[in-house]
């Protein structure tokens, strides 16, 4: 992930955050297990099949879902198709550049996609129009509007919200429109390691101070559905166990608060 405008956090800011952490506190006063404020605006783009704008602290993303008919993959003729794309819009950060997806946007898209896909959130079996020939393709496009850390979770929340209210345009294929069939709600929780601390939902400054990142996606049953370690630092196995626990707890809270 890009550093800030100057490429480095100021010494003073760095020291302040690290000193606070010694006391078990974060720069903005949060607990290590605490998310920033989340706000979700569903159906922001009525023209899309489903959509949502999510603010996670000062990070802001929009997800839009389009559902169109098309050919299934040859090796899964009886399943609908899900594709996920993330655009790091140059609008969102001074050093983001327009252009094809880079390794950062591809990683985010793939981690978000994995959480959705592996949880079997979308009932792809019920998105077949004509077996082997025609299925519904669910295009999920996520645009980053404002970047202040933890894009993976912001994107996951936006996708969940967009998919939950998405409508399949069945009438275009001689049937009826119907709600996109949803089974599970995978919530991702991303944490970073700063010193020996594991902090969830890092903001940009914390991302810059951290040595490594880990994302854990869980479903209602508490099962792990996807994980991703990022950045060039390391985790111990104890760190990972702690992260799994944190994700499971926070995932439950988020699911209850925002998706009931």
């Amino acid at each position, binding site marked *: 992930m890009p550093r800030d405008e100057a490429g480095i956090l100021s010494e003073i800011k760095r020291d302040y955050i690290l000193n606070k952490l010694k006391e078990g506190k974060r720069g903005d006063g949060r607990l290590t297990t605490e998310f920033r404020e989340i706000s979700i605006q569903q159906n922001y783009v009525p*023209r899309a099949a489903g959509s949502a704008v999510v603010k996670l602290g000062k990070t802001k993303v929009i997800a839009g879902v389009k559902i169109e008919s098309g050919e299934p993959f040859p090796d899964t003729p009886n399943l609908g198709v899900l594709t996920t794309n993330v655009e790091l819009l140059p609008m969102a950060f001074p050093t983001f550049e327009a252009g094809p997806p880079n390794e950062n946007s591809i990683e985010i898209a793939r981690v978000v996609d994995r959480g959705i896909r592996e949880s079997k959130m979308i009932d792809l079996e019920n998105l077949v129009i004509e077996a082997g020939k025609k299925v519904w393709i669910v*295009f999920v496009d996520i645009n980053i509007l404002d970047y202040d850390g933890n894009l993976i979770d912001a994107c996951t929340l936006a996708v969940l919200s967009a998919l939950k209210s998405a409508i399949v345009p069945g009438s275009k294929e001689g049937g009826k429109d119907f709600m996109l069939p949803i089974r599970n709600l995978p919530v991702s929780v991303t944490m970073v390691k700063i010193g020996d601390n594991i902090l969830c939902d890092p903001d940009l400054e914390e991302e810059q101070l951290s040595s490594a990142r880990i994302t854990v996606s869980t479903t209602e049953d508490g099962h792990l559905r996807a994980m991703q370690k990022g950045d060039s630092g390391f985790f111990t196995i104890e760190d990972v166990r702690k992260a799994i626990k944190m994700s499971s707890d926070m995932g439950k809270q988020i699911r209850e608060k925002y998706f009931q």
Partner: protein
Amino acid sequence: MGTASDIKLIDEKGIRIDGRSLSELRPIKIETDVLERADGSAYIEWGGNKIMVAVYGPREAYPKHTQDIDKAVIKARYNMAAFSVDERKRPGPDRRSVEISKVISEALQCAIIVEQFPRAQIDVYIEVLQADAGTRIAGLTAASVAVAAAGIPMRDLVVGCTAGKVDGKIVLDLGKEEDNFGQADLPMGILAKSGKIVLMQMDGDLTAEEFDEATTMIYDATKRINDIQREALAGKYRALAMERGGE
């Protein structure tokens, strides 16, 4: 302009398909400072259009060979979100976006006091989140506000507005069906105070008289749109003043 159609777009009383009179604008709402990271930002809802604009700069132009030793270069980038239109649009610029980015850059170049920032560039990112006819002029209208909100000195605000011909009549601010099935489309960008034309494109079929009628209608609307722009910026400065007052 679009395909011929049997749809009647204006009824015998001169009422348009969405209930507007011939010279009526769709509802317009502008907000500033909607983004944290950008140097300036604005959001516009114009009819069903939803467009976000961010401004970065002035900053050193890069790559170096794009620098102008006399003035700042304006690099506007008009972009449509994949989900903004009826059929999913593949991400990335198409030929239409490239052209629109060019004419918007040129329009802003004329409004900004670019001479104050030699060798600099000012980036204006226009993201169409939902498209509903007239995105380029709505985007330009918002871009102008976002530049002002970034504190970049301007000669004048640019107001974007469209007129067109529908069912043989000149109308203001084409809606989606009017855009698809109308007979002419005339998007313009006008400096609010001086009335100078900084963007103009046209396609379809207009006589010189119809052109005059259409531009008169646009100039008339310019004042109304500019009021909304200035109100949005005033809101920003009122808010700033209150913050200061509170100190």
